[in-house]
């Protein structure tokens, strides 16, 4: 599914972060986003995913414009942020079931996916007791279950150990084969160069 951003503008405390920013992605394309802290990488992903409002401009997913009144376009998209985005008072299993329900997905595969990301032993533990690496694996599990056409990955390797990084990279290969559109934010330029089609540097 293709993604198009046209003339996007956004300000914080009257300081512009984006001014008439445009981006066009073809279906199956992988873009890396890099730039210094405060350059707007996370802001861009949050605006595309609907977490953050836009001041002006348009975001188009496939044939549909994204706006607060129309939730449908977001069913083909998942934002894997570097903040938790999960309920600390629910278990890993419950969080996955809840989120898959939001996207109209069945919870039949939740257990299998938790085994795949090696969280099956912790699935009944409350998320507030998860380590950073476990949280990242849980978020990866969410992305696998939801199986969206567009993935917005914000520093997805943060907190992962060597095994976790290998797991994540294997999942990216699978997503590549399925021609998923991806935007990946990372501070590791070498990793981005190897794993994406092109890099956009935000200033």
């Amino acid at each position, binding site marked *: 599914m293709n993604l198009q951003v046209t003339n996007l503008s956004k300000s914080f405390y009257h300081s512009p972060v984006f001014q008439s920013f445009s981006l066009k992605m073809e279906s199956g394309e992988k873009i890396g986003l890099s730039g210094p802290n405060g350059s707007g990488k996370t802001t861009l992903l949050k605006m595309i995913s609907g*977490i953050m409002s836009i001041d002006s401009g348009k975001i188009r997913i496939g044939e549909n414009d994204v706006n607060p009144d129309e*939730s449908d376009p977001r069913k083909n998209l998942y934002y894997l942020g570097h903040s*938790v985005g*999960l309920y600390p*008072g629910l278990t890993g299993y419950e*969080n996955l079931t*809840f989120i898959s329900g939001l996207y109209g997905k069945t919870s039949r595969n939740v257990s299998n996916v938790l085994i795949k990301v090696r969280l099956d032993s912790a699935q009944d533990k409350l998320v507030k007791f998860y380590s950073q690496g476990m949280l990242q694996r849980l978020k990866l599990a969410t992305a696998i279950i939801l199986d969206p056409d567009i993935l917005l990955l914000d520093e997805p390797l943060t907190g992962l150990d060597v095994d976790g990084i290998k797991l994540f990279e294997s999942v990216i290969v699978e997503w590549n084969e399925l021609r998923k559109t991806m935007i990946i934010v990372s501070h590791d330029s070498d990793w981005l160069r190897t794993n994406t089609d092109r890099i956009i540097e935000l200033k």
Partner: protein
Amino acid sequence: MLIHFILKDLKIEWRSKEIITSMFLFGLSITLIFALAFQVAPMLIRTFAPGLLWVVILFTSVLGLNRLFSLEREEHAMWSWTSAPVDRGIVYISKVISALFFVLMSEILFIVPFFIFLNLPSNFSLFQFSLILFLGTGAIVSVGCLISGITLQAGLRDVLIPILLFPSASPVAIAATKCTESLFDQKPMTEWNFWFFILGSFFVIFSLFGYMVFNRIVEE
């Protein structure tokens, strides 16, 4: 989808029990203060009791609403549904229902001590009393959930919620007190159904308004 969100809130509360417990204990503390403050003129308690009851309910509702919405703020949990294909108005309605349930549960718990400590008679229709509690609480949480949603990402939100809620909910305070006063005086419902109408109108108007605007206020 609505049930999905309500069950999520109920599940979290079932485990921690912090919302209902804190509201109950806070309500009990305020009741104690009222009982002590009115010891100089205990015969006046009976006259002021309907108003005092709704003061307790308003104050405990603020606590409950603050805590209910903090669940969404912790670890940015709300991002799970702000980025999902979900009608955010449904999320607002689910919060109203969850809040109504939690506040009513805490009311059931502190109402008995309220009547005992203030030595209030209880020879009135329990059914009518339940209706008043239900509608009055519903009216409070309908505007309260909207205000809590507005202040969700604000600084000073602990202070902003009561500052915005109390004047906005003043028709509820007046109408609920009038209903309760009439009930305690054992007046027939036909004499106070106007106040019931005010509570119902408030509940409906602000629930509809909250449903319409919630999608605009939860975005960062």
